[in-house]
């Protein structure tokens, strides 16, 4: 195990290098990230045998990745922001063809106004495209998730594509300490790739992506996709536990901090979870019963486990780094609210939207959110469900 000073982008590129997939198809220009740049360098240096396909757009990147994966190759791509948006149409096709692609996504805002900075509009917008979604807090989790993604995607009970997220710039461009595994251990953990019904097998000719008319099996196909998502729930945990044995860093669907006796729990995803955890420690030192739940798996959404974990809370504040226009709250808020509705006790629910377009979230913003939740916990009327943190109003 080696400890490195490395950016989030660098850590993920290194993870991909250690896995050394057969093919990477990527759009090489902005909004692409350094992951694709670093990987192109590995290829140019002869450090990996991966075939690198630079394409003319992200739509083509995902199309090429689909073709390559269907042909039988272990295939990756990477994207961010508008690039993710341009892949949109093909994301659904990758998932419905049950292709075990993996893709790191550096989460960034969608235009307009034109903005290159961090938020979750891109990946959260793609939450229903049929991909498994894992969110990481820092470069370490970005590295670890990128490796585990292969095992989850390629599991025969799953066979779905996996995207792994870290926050744009805040994590992707920041240098932090990352513990890396030896190349051989990563390769052994990921194992050899077995293609299922590959196109390039003349012994067993298949058609992939054929037309399915009204009397066909589209509906059953979709149900099967959702069953695979259900299976993924268990597989993600198994892979996370096994990775824990290898690295000392076990993973599950979410992580909690100080929630056992907490009256107020903040739910966060991505790098803000670290900011929240730090503030929880400060507030605990002040004697306040505050806790945190950090979501890692967003698709499939571990609603039963989260409901159980949050059942003791009086008030829950859900932090969203993307908004859902006209909805009751951001994507994480609506998921958590739906999860809690199925329980016997119903905590009061509030939503804090923060950080859009890279707007910073400071410790005092989180403290302010907790103050709102304290009012609700004390039985005071809080007029709105949805609040915006560090926004200029008036």
């Amino acid at each position, binding site marked *: 195990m080696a*400890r*490195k*000073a490395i950016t989030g982008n660098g850590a993920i590129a290194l993870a991909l290098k250690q896995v050394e997939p057969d093919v990477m198809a990527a759009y090489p220009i902005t909004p692409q990230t350094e992951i694709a740049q670093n990987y192109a360098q590995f290829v140019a240096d002869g450090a990996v045998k991966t075939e690198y396909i630079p394409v003319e757009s992200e739509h083509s990147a995902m199309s090429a990745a689909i073709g390559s994966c269907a042909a039988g190759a272990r295939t990756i791509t990477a994207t961010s922001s508008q690039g993710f948006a341009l892949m949109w149409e093909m994301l659904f096709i990758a998932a419905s063809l049950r292709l075990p692609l993996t893709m790191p996504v550096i989460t960034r805002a969608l235009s307009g106004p034109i903005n*290159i*900075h961090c938020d979750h509009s891109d990946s959260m917008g793609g939450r229903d495209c049929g991909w498994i979604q894992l969110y990481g*807090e*820092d470069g370490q989790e970005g590295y670890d998730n990128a490796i585990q993604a292969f095992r989850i995607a390629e599991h025969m009970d799953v066979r779905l594509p996996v995207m792994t997220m870290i*926050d744009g*710039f*805040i*994590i992707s*461009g*920041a*240098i*932090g*300490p990352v513990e890396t595994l030896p190349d051989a251990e990563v390769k052994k953990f990921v194992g050899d790739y077995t293609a299922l019904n590959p196109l390039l097998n003349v012994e067993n000719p298949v058609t992939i992506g054929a037309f399915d008319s009204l009397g066909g099996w589209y509906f059953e196909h979709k149900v099967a996709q959702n069953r695979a998502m259900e299976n993924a729930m268990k597989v993600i945990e198994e892979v996370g536990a096994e990775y824990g044995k290898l690295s000392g860093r076990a993973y599950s669907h979410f992580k909690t901090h100080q929630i056992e006796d907490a009256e107020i729990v903040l739910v966060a995803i991505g*790098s*803000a979870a*670290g*900011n929240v*955890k*730090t503030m929880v*420690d*400060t507030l605990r*030192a002040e004697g306040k019963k505050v806790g945190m739940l950090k979501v890692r798996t967003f698709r499939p959404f571990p609603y039963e486990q989260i409901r159980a974990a949050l059942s003791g809370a009086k008030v829950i504040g859900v932090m969203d780094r993307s908004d859902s226009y006209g909805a009751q709250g951001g994507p994480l808020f609506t998921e958590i609210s739906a999860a809690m509705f199925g329980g016997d006790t119903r905590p009061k629910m509030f939503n804090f939207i923060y950080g859009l377009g*890279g707007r*910073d*979230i*400071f*410790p005092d913003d989180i403290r302010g959110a907790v103050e709102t939740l304290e009012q609700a916990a004390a039985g005071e009327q809080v007029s709105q469900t949805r609040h915006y943190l560090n926004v200029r109003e008036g």
Partner: protein
Amino acid sequence: MQQVTEIRWHARGGQGAVTAAKMVAEVALSQDKYFQAFPEYGPERSGAPIVAFTRLSDEPIQIYSAIEHPDYVLVLDPTLLDVVDVTAGTSDGAVVIVNSEGACSELAGRPEMAGRNVYTVPATKIALETIKRAIPNTPLIGALAKVSGLFSLEGILEEVQTSLSKKFNENVVNANLEAVRRGYEEVSDE
């Protein structure tokens, strides 16, 4: 509570502030400390004012927002003093190290420096005499080591040696080592 040392770098694009912030992170890594180094993200243009940040701690750092109240402010370009509020968010007793050949007392007399511990180091002069280029970052790192005591001179020299040896020949490496050493020796509060 967790003790985190926070450093803010002010420079112009091309002066090596981001590299310096990275180098300090590498030194922290070599000393088994926890660290973060990150620029204020945006379009980077040579000559435009930029800001970079470093956090150091003995424990894992899990806060990712920009540094609001730095303990140390390093100014790589003295012309920024009239353009940027370099002491913004600092408390009394914060340390400000400015790349300047001028007398420290002159800078310390500026209104925004009141109550701050001001140091100067002729980093550009040192850089020109050692590495023969006006990139003042390495002398500033030497100055930071001396003033802060966060890490030893030997620790930095070792790190500069290791990281630069991968990319540059011996002359360049030695020149940078000399630049760090002189920054360490020539930083002054007089």
